[in-house]
């Protein structure tokens, strides 16, 4: 809070607001805002997943009529088939919704908001009102994005059958800067899409400022920087990345918007001849400029999605291994290194873009250098588990799954990061498989782990372990069956963003059977997510009551009731004596030493 800290030990309570709207809708309580973000992401992830289901239907059975589609999408798929433009619109919306409204919101806005203040011993975020604004701007952004899906309903001139923009989540210019003449959905659809992203950028900026200030200024007595849980370091670094990268996307987005509604030409060069006509009114724009602006944001964004999962994995592995994190300092430095290097590699998305080939060499070498801190993390996770006494709870097995997926998804980047090897692989399914494993599924495993781990604290009840484990096994095997074969399809040369690969003879006879296999694996995996939803709902109402510290963990959130009171520590300021990973301390009474426990113990950072 902004006011002066009370003298240690003195009680300085904050009473919760009484009205429903102030308490649950326009709340300034970081815990309510965290839950709001988390539900927004949950809604978005199901929207995005249904879109992927439709795409997989089309890819495995191209052009087939689906009776249910006539009912589900009467405007976009009147005859029940997924048209090429509907397919591309699904590609665009699936990517945009997943990246912005799931991967960026749940780990940071959701868990970060809820647990950063508690883990550092604060009563709330530094700027609670800003926090509320940040969530509601994100909400507006989502609402506008949903409008973009129905662009053809709004825009009479749109071709029948289109559901939104078709330019992909990267919205490359000039396809996305030329308006409707470049393709259906590229007019009103793109305007709404880019407006939504601009709102999202502002929301993320506000959130980032708040996270950075909170972690630096509101740590409780004894919570030195090297006693912070690794989750906090990850959220902090993520916030720094967001603070430095979102403004660039915002600038790019505003320029793009002006190209649509302001008559400017930032991204369209002179002499364009589109759809049978010369574009007389546009000149002087640069096509590659958009890609630089986009990826200057886009690459740090990958780390914005994955870093919180990495922090959380370290935290959970240590907790259930009953062992200190192996190499705490190295872990912190590795997070910094990944964050820093992450700003100098955006060009590896652009090796074949026409960018200067000398520049590509620099980007390539720095890209492979990122493998080093990533390898440090993997090594330290294995080190944490070595000699452990693992408790195989659901959050733990999801974290183990995270490590496995992080290795699989990260390691394929070694191919793509090399300029020459990227030539045949760029824009093929190899890339699709790679980034889904690492920033998609690994990050989502982090979110699942976080949900199973913190649900008892957030809602006061335990989640069902049996359902959790079934959910894990199907999902873990499922995602491997979906994304590993995609690498092979990419090696064979299957271009991405194709609504059908049937026309390409060089792909050979085993391509379609493998595509069908991937689709079926996707359907099973998607169906298994219903187990998660059932578990959530059931546990929320019927789950066994969780005590203060059901996992026997050490960080500050486990010293207060579940769910925590409005001001977290009931007006007290906790005193911190140790680092967060004091498990199995020799001579200690229990196998975990709380951060607030005054008992002497050697710990990292002391």
């Amino acid at each position, binding site marked *: 809070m902004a006011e002066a800290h009370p003298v240690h030990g003195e009680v300085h309570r904050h009473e919760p607001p009484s009205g429903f709207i102030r308490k649950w809708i326009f709340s300034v309580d970081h815990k309510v805002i965290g839950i709001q973000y988390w539900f927004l992401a949950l809604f978005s992830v199901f929207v995005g997943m249904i879109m992927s289901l439709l795409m997989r239907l089309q890819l495995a059975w191209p052009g087939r009529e689906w009776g249910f589609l006539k009912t589900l999408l009467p405007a976009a798929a009147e005859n029940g088939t997924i048209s090429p433009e509907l397919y591309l619109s699904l590609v665009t919306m699936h990517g945009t919704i997943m990246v912005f409204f799931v991967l960026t919101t749940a780990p940071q806005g959701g868990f970060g908001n809820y647990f950063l203040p508690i883990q550092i011993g604060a009563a709330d975020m530094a700027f609670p009102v800003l926090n509320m604004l940040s969530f509601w701007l994100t909400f507006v952004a989502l609402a506008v994005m949903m409008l973009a899906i129905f662009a053809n309903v709004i825009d009479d001139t749109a071709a029948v059958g289109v559901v939104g923009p078709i330019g992909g989540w990267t919205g490359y210019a000039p396809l996305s800067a030329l308006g409707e003449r470049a393709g259906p959905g590229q007019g009103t659809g793109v305007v709404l899409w880019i407006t939504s992203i601009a709102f999202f950028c502002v929301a993320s900026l506000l959130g980032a400022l708040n996270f950075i200030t909170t972690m630096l200024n509101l740590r409780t007595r004894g919570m030195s920087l090297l006693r912070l849980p690794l989750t906090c370091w990850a959220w902090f670094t993520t916030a720094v990345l967001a603070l430095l990268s979102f403004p660039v996307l915002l600038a790019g987005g505003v320029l793009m918007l002006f190209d649509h509604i302001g008559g400017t030409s930032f991204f369209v060069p002179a002499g364009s*001849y589109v759809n049978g006509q010369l574009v007389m009114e546009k000149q002087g724009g640069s096509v590659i400029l958009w890609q630089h602006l986009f990826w200057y944001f886009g690459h740090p964004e990958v780390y914005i999605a994955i870093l919180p999962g990495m922090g959380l994995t370290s935290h959970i592995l240590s907790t259930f291994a009953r062992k200190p994190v192996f*190499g705490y300092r*190295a872990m912190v430095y590795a997070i910094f290194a990944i964050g820093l290097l992450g700003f100098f590699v955006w060009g590896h998305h652009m090796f074949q873009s026409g960018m200067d080939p000398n520049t590509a060499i620099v980007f390539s070498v720095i890209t492979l250098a990122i493998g080093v801190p990533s390898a440090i993390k993997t090594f330290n996770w294995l080190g944490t588990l070595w000699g452990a006494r693992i408790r195989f709870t659901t959050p733990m097995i999801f974290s183990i799954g995270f490590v496995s997926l992080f290795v699989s998804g990260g390691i394929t980047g070694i191919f793509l990061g090399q*300029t020459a090897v990227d*030539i045949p692989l760029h824009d093929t399914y190899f890339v699709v498989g790679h980034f889904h494993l690492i920033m998609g599924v690994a990050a989502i495993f982090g979110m699942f782990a976080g949900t199973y781990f913190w649900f008892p604290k957030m809602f006061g009840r335990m989640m069902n372990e049996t359902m959790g484990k079934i959910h894990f096994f199907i999902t873990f095997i499922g995602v491997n069956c979906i994304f590993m074969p995609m690498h092979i399809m990419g090696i064979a040369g299957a271009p991405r*963003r194709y609504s059908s690969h049937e026309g390409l003879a060089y792909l050979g006879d085993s391509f379609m059977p493998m595509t069908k296999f991937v689709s079926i694996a996707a359907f099973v995996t998607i169906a298994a997510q219903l187990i998660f939803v059932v578990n959530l709902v059931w546990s929320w109402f019927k789950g066994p009551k969780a005590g203060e510290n059901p996992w026997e963990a050490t960080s500050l959130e486990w010293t207060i009731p579940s769910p925590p009171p409005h001001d977290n520590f009931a007006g007290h300021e906790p005193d911190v004596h140790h680092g967060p990973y004091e498990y199995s301390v020799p001579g200690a009474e229990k196998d975990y030493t709380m951060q607030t426990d005054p008992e002497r113990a050697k710990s990292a950072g002391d």
Partner: protein
Amino acid sequence: MGKIIAVIMWLLVIGTVLLFVGQNVLFGDGRLWFPENISEIGATIDTQFSRTLVVVGIAFVLSQVALGYVVFRFGRRGQERAQYIHGSGKLEAIWTVATGVVFIVLAVMAQFIWAQVHLQEAGPNAVKVEVVAQQFQFNFHYPGADGVFGRTEPKFINDSSLNYVGLDPSDANGKDDVQTTTLVVPVGDPVDLTLRSKDVIHSLFIPALRFKQDTVPGLSIKMHFTANKAGKYEIPCAELCGQLHYNMRSFMLVLPKDDYRAMAAMSEEKFKERLTELLQQYPINR
């Protein structure tokens, strides 16, 4: 529980290795892998890919097997406590330096191939072709018998009268120029491409050559390659360019030198007649 997870993890590793290595052995021609390579540079790219596959494959198998192993071995045993270790600076340093060296060496090796692709010229005797991409076709522009390209300008572009590249009708050099939607090149001679786009970004992807380059509105990008085997090869578009992106593809005809020379001297009409014949004659190389 730990043992089940470990076994599943190991099975997935075996499955992945089979997918990447085994299917090549098991299925022969039916395998899903790079299409047959027909260029020298493609062979070096394939070698670098294989080298990376070996390095990455070893790292992948080792780390997944190790993860399975610790999960298998270090499960809970009654009230027994875990080891109290905070890390090891020495192990950390060894690991960091080792991965750093391997990754950077790979990255540097790849740059030598990259330099051959991008930082060298095609040579003075190369066959010159201009590529002009548009929604949803690739146009290839040849200088004709005189070996000189006619002047082109956007204002002369007229799709309905088949002047896709915008040849200036008043330029004498352009009278014998040829525009097609098939890339025709000779076996064994270097080809010098200039790539442009009329509308949005496209990408000329020739899997058999391990060739890929975006065509960018406003830019003229120079590229070169040499094809070593006659045949008909597919050229899909690899950059999202709109509604019919999936349907945008051309063919590359690699012809014996004599056949090519004969065609290069033909008028546009004859060239296209001959091209139609040849396209029917050659099956698609897969």
